[in-house]
């Protein structure tokens, strides 16, 4: 997943910020895993708890049956559980990295990541996957919020923070001129393409693995729905953007694939192939409109993270109440309540963290640093020392 995110982010941004983006992605995966070991895993899976906030128990130690077939019905061991969930945690913070690219101070980003990944993500996750209040929220026939592999718990949690961060940071210099959005083309579209295809493969691990056992039927169905939603998302985004903008924009095609993937994630094991195609297709259309909406409200999201992870994450979560085995008014209401709970919690916490950083150490690099590139100033490095092509 992280190779894919790193490639996509550097591909859709300018070469002068490449080291900075790679650095953030490497920071997230390394520090994310350590944090998840230190506090995250126990906070997210507290066992019996009040349903809202678990307790902080440093380190991980397997329960008595952790290595035997009794743990998780014999599907996997405690160690596997930790590793799998740790990768999810590291993904949530990566979403923010792309949205704040090319202008956020690396120090502020690192502090934000540590707090958000260390505390906010596991607490939010515990509400559902840890057996908290949302997992037992019952309305009518619907028993419990449903998020199979993280449309809300991973993608929206990252997406809400991305939205708040982009709002507090402001747009990149030159993004809006006389009130209209300007194009700041990414510097390496082949890398962005490779990134999306790698993410697609990574999704097989996340969605397929979320079956939490090697059950052949459930796992293979999940892989089929994941694949079809991605394909439908890409195709519909391509068609929509072609109709709207009269050009065959590869980056929209790519974002559409990701939108389909994020959209199917909440209900990947509940959908028929036809449902999956519909969910992916709607996500693909949403992407194109969301990218332009984000532009219209003067938010600068260089890689489309808000459109992909937030909008399609919310869509995928609601889609569980509209399509597939769980569809129904009651389930839709439960899904909606879940979405709203995460919205309030994530917006509030990320606003607090980033606003505090803004008022203390500052979150934005200086104008000169931004114009000359974060690589030169934050890292004193050059991603392509032999190929100095552009001054800007």
């Amino acid at each position, binding site marked *: 997943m992280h190779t894919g995110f790193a490639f996509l982010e550097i591909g859709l941004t300018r070469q002068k910020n490449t080291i900075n983006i790679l650095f953030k992605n490497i920071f997230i995966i390394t520090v994310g895993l350590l944090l998840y070991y230190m506090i995250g895993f126990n906070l997210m899976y507290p066992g019996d708890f009040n349903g809202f906030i678990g307790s902080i128990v440093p380190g991980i130690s397997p329960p008595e049956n952790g290595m035997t077939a009794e743990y998780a019905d014999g599907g996997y061991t405690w160690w596997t559980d930790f590793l799998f969930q740790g990768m999810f945690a590291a993904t949530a913070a990566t979403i923010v990295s792309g949205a704040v690219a090319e202008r956020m101070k690396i120090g502020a980003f690192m502090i934000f990541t540590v707090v958000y990944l260390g505390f906010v993500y596991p607490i939010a996750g515990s509400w559902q996957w840890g057996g908290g209040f949302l997992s037992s929220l019952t309305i009518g026939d619907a028993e419990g919020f449903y998020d199979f592999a993280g449309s809300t718990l991973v993608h929206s949690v990252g997406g809400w923070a991305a939205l708040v961060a982009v709002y507090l940071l402001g747009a990149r210099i030159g993004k809006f001129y006389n009130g209209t*959005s*300007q*194009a*700041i*083309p990414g510097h390496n579209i082949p890398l962005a393409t490779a990134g999306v295809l790698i993410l697609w493969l990574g999704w097989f691990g996340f969605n397929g693995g979320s079956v939490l056992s090697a059950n052949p039927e459930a796992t293979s169905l999940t892989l089929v729905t994941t694949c079809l939603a991605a394909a439908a998302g890409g195709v519909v985004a391509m068609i929509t*953007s072609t109709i*709207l*903008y*009269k*050009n065959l*924009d590869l*980056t*929209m095609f790519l974002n559409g694939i990701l939108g389909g993937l994020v959209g199917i994630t909440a209900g990947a094991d509940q959908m028929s192939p036809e449902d999956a195609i519909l969910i992916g297709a709607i996500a693909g259309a949403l992407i*194109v409109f969301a*990218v*332009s909406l984000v*532009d219209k409200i003067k938010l600068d999201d260089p890689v*489309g993270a808000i459109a992909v992870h937030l909008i399609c994450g919310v869509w995928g979560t609601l889609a569980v109440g509209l399509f597939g085995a769980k569809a129904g008014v009651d389930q839709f209401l439960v899904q909606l309540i879940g979405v709203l709970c995460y919205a309030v919690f994530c917006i509030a916490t990320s606003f607090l963290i980033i606003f505090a950083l803004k008022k203390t150490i500052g979150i934005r690099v200086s104008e000169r640093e931004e114009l000359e590139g974060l690589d030169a100033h934050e890292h004193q490095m050059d991603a392509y020392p032999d190929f100095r092509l552009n001054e800007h």
Partner: protein
Amino acid sequence: MKKVEAIIRKSKFSSVKKALHEVGVNFFSYWDVTGLGNEKEGHVYRGVSYSTSDIQRRYLSIVVNDDFEDVTIKAILSAGSTGDVGDGKIFVSQVDEVYRIRTGEKGGNTLK
């Protein structure tokens, strides 16, 4: 001796090179340049239209004897043209002297 400098479309470089060889002009230098001009290239990126006036062209610098001036210019004019705006320009100027570095000799013979 004359210096014939030409700014041409990159897509016309191979036909101009061939035409120059055909009239006996076998030595010249060239490099890629970026400039500004009347031509605007339209682009769309993620739903935002923009145009760039940065134009990519190839710059040829050819030094010839006076009797080659006409054929050189004719070769570029015919092989480099598409008829559209943006085909480029040719500049002709006087060259006072030419030296061959290996032998130290000077004059028109050094261009043959």
